[in-house]
């Protein structure tokens, strides 16, 4: 083979070999400028930051905030997204809240409306236990120092009777009466004695109370312990646990358990199904619970000593103290034609007075964006 032909062949071979090589497309990650639009179109970091940086000084300049010597408390309402974009609207509020916290120098405070709720509830619940113990100690001391005990020349005999529930269902405060009883007995140093639980013979006074929920309706729980007790009893008696819908009309309303033959009939099975399905009814109601302790004269049933104390306060998120509500909306208007899309975006923020529902302040940021989509994939 001639040299020239060899050269041509080897060059061709090299070209063929190298044209088959390719650098594979590898992913690359890097930090880019926060405000740069790496991908055009839509709502991005630039909009989030621009909105926050326009609204923050505008809010701080409001006379109600700038000239006020006291702290302004603001509750945040979730931002509404009325645009065509799938946006995490929380990020607008978070960024604005960050800037306001940073630059208001303590003049503005927010409520933790979503974060740390479980931890907070746990802490408050733990604190309640100490509070109840301290309250019962205090009441026992007051009763022992009261006129009824100090003026009595003889030993006083008290009996305990179950606490009356005013509007609480499935719950009772008998354990507190039992605790109070032992504290009174301890502090009285023999001046006050109690009869055996369940007996009221020859008692001078009765120790009882009223268990009250700060609510205009009945509050309570479907007590699992009571339910299990009923079920266990039926199992021992060989009765069925099936639930059947009563076909005959009944005159009673509400849930009633009627044991007929071997089945349990319920007048309102829908309600029962709701009870079974609803987790709220198995959880302790979040209402302020009070105990009105009563010492009653056994003869004439007159209350001679009465003390109301709060067992547990309703756990609130604190927003009742808010001076203003911060809310907002993302609205957009879109036009499409032959693969071209134009979006007009209007992002607004408002401050609303909770009592009057007036919009005290409102501002907006508007931007228009154009993008092109491939015709094939429309």
């Amino acid at each position, binding site marked *: 083979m001639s040299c020239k032909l060899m050269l041509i062949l080897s060059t061709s071979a090299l070209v063929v070999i190298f044209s088959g090589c390719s650098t594979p497309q590898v992913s690359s990650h890097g930090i880019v*400028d*926060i*405000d*740069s*639009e790496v991908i055009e179109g839509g709502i991005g970091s*630039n909009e989030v*930051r*621009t909105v926050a*940086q*326009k609204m*923050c*000084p*505008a809010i*701080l*300049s*409001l*006379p109600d905030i*700038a000239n006020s010597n006291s702290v302004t408390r603001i509750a945040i309402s979730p931002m509404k997204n009325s645009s065509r974009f799938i946006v995490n609207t929380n990020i607008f509020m978070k960024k604005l809240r960050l*800037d306001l916290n940073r*630059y*208001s120098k303590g003049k503005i405070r927010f409520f933790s409306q979503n974060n740390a709720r479980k931890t907070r509830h746990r802490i408050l619940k733990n604190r309640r236990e100490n509070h109840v113990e301290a309250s019962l100690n205090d009441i026992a001391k007051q009763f022992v120092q009261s006129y009824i005990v100090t003026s009595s020349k003889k030993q006083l005999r008290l009996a305990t009777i179950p606490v009356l529930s005013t509007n609480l269902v499935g719950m009772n405060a008998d354990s507190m009466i039992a605790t109070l009883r032992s504290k009174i007995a301890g502090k009285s140093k023999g001046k006050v004695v109690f009869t055996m639980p369940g007996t009221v013979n020859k008692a001078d006074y009765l120790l009882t109370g009223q268990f009250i929920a700060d609510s205009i309706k009945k509050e309570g729980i479907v007590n699992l312990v009571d339910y299990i007790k009923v079920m266990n009893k039926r199992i021992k008696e060989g009765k069925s646990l099936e639930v059947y819908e009563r076909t005959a009309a009944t005159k009673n309303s509400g849930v009633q358990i009627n044991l007929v033959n071997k089945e349990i009939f319920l007048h309102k099975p829908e309600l029962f199904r709701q009870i079974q399905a609803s987790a709220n009814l198995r959880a302790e109601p979040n209402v302020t619970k009070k105990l009105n302790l009563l010492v009653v004269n056994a003869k004439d049933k007159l209350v001679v000593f009465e003390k109301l104390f709060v067992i547990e306060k309703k756990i609130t998120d604190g927003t009742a103290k808010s001076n203003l509500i911060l809310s907002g909306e993302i609205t957009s208007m879109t036009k499409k034609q032959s693969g071209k899309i134009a979006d007009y975006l209007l992002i607004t923020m408002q401050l609303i007075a909770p009592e009057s529902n007036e919009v005290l302040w409102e501002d907006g940021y508007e*931007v*228009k964006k154009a993008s092109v989509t491939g015709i094939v994939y429309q």
Partner: protein
Amino acid sequence: MKNKLLFFIMLTLISLCGCKSTYNLEPESASDLAAEGSVVVVRPDRYVLFGTRSAADYLRITYCNMTQNAGGLPEIKLGIKNVSGNHWWDMGSEDFTIYVQAVFYKEPLKGQSTRSAPIFKTNKQAVFIKRGKTQDLSFISPVKGAGGYQIIISED
């Protein structure tokens, strides 16, 4: 051959002595800092032989001042005009987007050969300017006490 090898080794050793693990950064020239104005445009991505790629050639300031708003916060008001297409070698005028960032300082900047840390810096805000039109921009700092400012304009 032996001499050449020795020479090569010595040259290598001398070169290695010049290697350091760290190098000092030179400070910006005081005269350059002092010459910077209140409104600056970042340098173009590259310089070309003919024409210009700098946005400074397409933009003019119509007004620029700093006042206090009703809440006592410093506010910069800036007017920028698109004057593109004003050269014989560049007659085509364009609408374009620029990014504007405002930086607030405690002291006025003019003539200052040193800089202190800014008291507040806005983000880069996108501004679309139509050819021949003036855009009116406003930047408010949530931090009080600004005595000086600088506006930085870039293409991205």
